[in-house]
C-alpha cells in the first residue's frame, strides 16, 4: 500500500477544521454577497447555493446570457509522471493515447467486475500531466492503480478553485476579460492564460450542453478571477447561478450524475445496484482495441454472454408534469424501471426524463412504456399514468455549443 500519512505538525495545523462543519469554497465571499435567497445545500462537504436570486431566471441566464457557477467542490486529482498516460489508460475506459495535450475528454472508470466507480472529465494538461475531475472520492483506488507505474497522484480539491462559465455570451465575457486566444478553443480544448501573477486554465467544456467554458485557478487567485469575469461580463448579462438551474440545463443536455442517475460501485451497499458502462449509456467509451484497462475482461464477458441487465434511456413523457422518481411500466402493468431525473424542458418544450430500465425494456422493447407520476398537490397525490417514449439524448442540442470560432452573442 502506498503511504500517504501526514506529519505531526501538518496534522496539528488542521485540527481547527472542526470549528466549521461545512467548508466554504474560495468563491464563497462573492456568492454570499449575491445570495438573496440564502438557499444553500451541501455539495461534497461544501456550502453551495441551490439558487441565488431566482432559480428560473438563473436557468435562463444559462440559455440566453452567461451563467457563472462555482464548481470548486468537484473532486480533483492531479496525475503526473512519465507513466501518467499509461496509468490513465489502464484506469479509464477510453483511449488516453488519443487524448492530446491541451484536450479534455469525458470518461468513466470501473472496478474489476466492470462496475462503474465514477464518471468524470480527464484534462490532459501536458504530455505527462493530467487532472481528473469527478463526483466521488477515489484516492485509495488511484493510489493502488498507480502500483507499477511511474506516476504521482495527489488530491487537489481544496487548492484548485473552479468556475463554470456557461451560456451564449460566455465567449464574449472571456474576450472582454482580456483572455486573448480563447476564441481558438474548440470543444474539449484547453489552454492556459495569464491571470494576475499566475495562470488560469480554461477548457471549452461544461455540463449544460451550451456554449461554455470551465476555468481552474489556484484557490488564492479565486476571488480576483471572479471579479475579473463579473466585471467583464457586466454588459454581457453575466449572472451567478445555483445548482437548481444548472441541474435543469444538464438534464436537457442528457448528462448523468453519479449517485443520482446511477449508484457508484464503491457506494452500493446493495450489491445489485451497481452498473456496467453499457447499463448507463457509457458503453461507447469502452475501447477494446487499446490494451488492458480496469474492468475490460468483465465488460467484454458480460457483452459476450448477454449478461447486461439494465439500460439507461432518455424518455419523453406525455403532458407537462415532471416524472421525477416515477416507476416505469411496460403495458401499464409490468414494472420495468425508474426515472432518476425529470423536468419540463423550457428550451425544448418537452417533458423529459432520464430513466434506468431493466433489459430488454428500453433496449429492444421500447413500445408501450408508461410512467406513474405521483404529483403532490395540496396534500394529496394526483396519480397520473402517462405514456413515455424512448428518445435520443441530448434532449436539447444547440449548434452554438460546438461552433468554432464560438459565436459572439
Amino acid at each position, binding site marked *: 500500500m502506498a503511504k500517504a500519512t501526514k506529519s505531526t505538525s501538518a496534522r496539528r495545523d488542521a485540527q481547527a477544521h472542526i470549528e466549521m462543519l461545512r467548508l466554504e469554497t474560495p468563491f464563497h465571499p462573492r456568492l454570499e454577497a449575491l445570495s438573496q435567497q440564502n438557499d444553500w445545500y451541501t455539495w461534497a462537504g461544501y456550502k453551495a447555493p441551490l439558487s441565488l436570486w431566482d432559480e428560473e431566471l438563473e436557468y435562463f441566464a444559462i440559455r440566453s446570457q452567461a451563467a457563472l457557477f462555482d464548481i470548486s467542490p468537484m473532486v480533483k486529482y492531479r496525475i503526473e509522471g512519465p507513466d501518467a498516460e499509461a496509468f490513465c489508460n489502464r484506469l479509464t475506459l477510453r483511449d488516453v493515447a488519443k487524448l492530446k495535450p491541451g484536450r479534455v475528454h469525458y470518461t468513466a472508470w470501473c*472496478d*474489476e467486475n466492470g462496475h462503474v466507480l465514477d464518471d468524470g472529465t480527464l484534462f490532459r494538461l501536458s504530455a505527462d500531466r493530467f487532472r481528473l475531475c469527478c463526483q466521488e472520492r477515489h484516492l485509495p483506488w488511484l493510489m493502488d*492503480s498507480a*502500483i*507499477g507505474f511511474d506516476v504521482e497522484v495527489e488530491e487537489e480539491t481544496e487548492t484548485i478553485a473552479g468556475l463554470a462559465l456557461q451560456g451564449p455570451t460566455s465567449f464574449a465575457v472571456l474576450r472582454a476579460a482580456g483572455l486573448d486566444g480563447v476564441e481558438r478553443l474548440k470543444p474539449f480544448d484547453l489552454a492556459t492564460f495569464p491571470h494576475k501573477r499566475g495562470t488560469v486554465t480554461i477548457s471549452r467544456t461544461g455540463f449544460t450542453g451550451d456554449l461554455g467554458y470551465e476555468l481552474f485557478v489556484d484557490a488564492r487567485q479565486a476571488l480576483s478571477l471572479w471579479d475579473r469575469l463579473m466585471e467583464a461580463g457586466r454588459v454581457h448579462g453575466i449572472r451567478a447561478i445555483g445548482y437548481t438551474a444548472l441541474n435543469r440545463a444538464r438534464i436537457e443536455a442528457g448528462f448523468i450524475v453519479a449517485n443520482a442517475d446511477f449508484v457508484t460501485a464503491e457506494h452500493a451497499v446493495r450489491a445489485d445496484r451497481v452498473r456496467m458502462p453499457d447499463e448507463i449509456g457509457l458503453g461507447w467509451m469502452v475501447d477494446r482495441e487499446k*490494451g*488492458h484497462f*480496469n474492468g475490460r*475482461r468483465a465488460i467484454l464477458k458480460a457483452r459476450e454472454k448477454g449478461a447486461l441487465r439494465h439500460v439507461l434511456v432518455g424518455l419523453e413523457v406525455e403532458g407537462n408534469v415532471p416524472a421525477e422518481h416515477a416507476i416505469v411500466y411496460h403495458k401499464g402493468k409490468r414494472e420495468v424501471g425508474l426515472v432518476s431525473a425529470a423536468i419540463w424542458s423550457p428550451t425544448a418544450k418537452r417533458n423529459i426524463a432520464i430513466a434506468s430500465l431493466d433489459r430488454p425494456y428500453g433496449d429492444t422493447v421500447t413500445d408501450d412504456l408508461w410512467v406513474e407520476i405521483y404529483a403532490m398537490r395540496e396534500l394529496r397525490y394526483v396519480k397520473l399514468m402517462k405514456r413515455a417514449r424512448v428518445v435520443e439524448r441530448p434532449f436539447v442540442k444547440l449548434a452554438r455549443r460546438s461552433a468554432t470560432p464560438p459565436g459572439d452573442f
Partner: protein
Amino acid sequence: MTSFDDIVIGGGHNGLVAATVLAKAGRKVLVLEAEDETGGAARKHEFHPGFRVSSVAHVLNRLHPDVVKALELDRLGLTLEGRTMPTIALAPDAGPVVLRGAYGETVDGLSLSDAAGWAELRALLFRQVGVLKPLLARRAPDLEAMSLSEKLALGGVALSLRRLGKEGMRDFLRMLLMNVDDVTGEFVENDALRGLLAFDAVQGSHLGPRSPTSLIGLYFRLAGEIGGAEGGQMLPKGGMGAVIEAMHAAAERRGVTIRAKAPVSRILIEKGRAVGVVLADGEEIRARTVVSAINPRTTFADLVGPRELDTGFLRKILNVRMKGNVARLYLALDGVPSFAGVAADDHAGRLVIAPSSNAVENAFNPAKYGEFSPEPAMEIVLPSLSDPSLAPGGACVLSANVQFAPYALKGGWDKGKPKFLKAIVAQLERCAKGIGKTILASELLTPADIEARFRMPGGHWHHGELQPDQMLMSRPVFGAGGYDTPIDGLYLAGAGSHPGGGVSGVPGMNAARRVLAEK
C-alpha cells in the same frame, strides 16, 4: 523455434507434477526452472563440506496417492511403504511422549486417562478430517458455475457430514473453527502432547494455538497421508531429494522438456491472453498456455505486471498474507546428539520441542510485533540417521523448522540472527545437553533468507497463510481460486493455490487437470 503446448514456470514439485500430467495427456510441455536444478524448496543443499540437507521440506507427510499413481513414482524408485517414523514430543522435565504409527496410533509416555483422552481425540479428528479430505483433494468449489461433478463432490461432502451422525456433526460444526489449544484441553492434560498438537497446528503459519481457527492447521496436517497411512510421515529412502528425483524422472519419461537456469522475467500477454514467456536473457518462448507453479504474487505482480491486471485484482493479490514465520536451521554435528529420555532408535524420528501449548503461544507472541521467540518451538529431524550419505562417517546432520521467526525483524535480521541462533541453541541444549559443543557448522535461514534463496515472497512455505480467509475459492484470491486466472491461458499450479503447501503435488495435479478440462 520449437513450439510448446504448455510452459510450466518453476521446477518445484508442483511444477513437475503439473508438467507430467499434461505431458501424459499428449501435450508438449516445457518446464522452466530458474535455478541450476529442479526441486524448488525440496531440493538438496550442501551447507557445509560433506553435510547435506533437504532445503526446506524435510519430512514427507502428504504426498497425494493420486500423484504417486499419476506419475508412477513407485515405479521410479520411490518407496513409501512401511517407513512411517515416530514423533517425539520432547519434555525436558517430564520425559518425552512418543507417537508411533500413523500420528500416534499408539503413544508412549501418557497417563492412563490421557491415553484414553488421546485415543478419543485422535479418532474424532480423523473422522472429521474424513469430511474435509475430499475438499482438499479437488478443485475448490466454484460457487458461480458449478459443474455437475463439482456438485456431486460437494454433495459427497454433505453426505459424509451426515454420516458423522447427529452428535458427530454437532461436534464437527462446533470444532471446525476453534483454536487447537481449547480442543486439546478438552481431552488431554499432558503438556508435551498438547504442545506437540499445538505446534503441528500452527507450524508454518502466523497463528498461535490459542488463535481461533488454529485447529484447521491440525486438520490439514492430518489430511495428509503417506503410503496409505493417514497422518503418517516418513523420510523416504534417499531423503526428500529422492522424491524430486523420481518426479524429475517421471517428467522426462513423459517427454517433458526441462530447462534449468532459465529464469522467466515476464509472461507475454497479448489481448488479455497469455501466449508465452520472456526469459531473463530476452529469449521469447511461445505456447498455448502458461502454467505458473511459483508464487502467485510473483506471478501476477512481477511476471504479468500491473498493467495487464485490474487494480482490484492486484489489490487482492498484494493483500494475500504471506510473511513467513519459520526459520530453517541446518547443523553439522560431529556426532549423533542425544536427546534426553529418547531411545536411540527414536532419534531417527521427528523430534518436536514444544513443551506445552502455552509455550507455543508464548513463542508466537513476539512474532506479532516483528520479534523472534526467545524460547522458540521447533521440529527436528536427523536425516543422516536414515540416509548416511548426507554426512561424513560418524557425523550427523540436524535439520529443524524453528518458530517463530518473523519475516521482518525489528532492527533487521543482520543484527538479530546471531541472537536468534543463540536462543535456538539454548533451547536445543535444554533437550540435548552438550549438543552445542558438537556443532561444526551451522546455517540459519530466516524467512528473509528463504525468500531470497527460493524466490518465495515473504519466505512463506505455503506461498500464503493457510487460514480460512485464504482457503478454498479464496486461495490465493477470489477470481483465481480454481487454478485458472483472469488472464486467459494462464494457470496457477503452486502451493499458493488450493489446497496449499507441503509436498503433496495436489495443486500441480489439479491445475493440469483444469488446463486439460478447459480445452
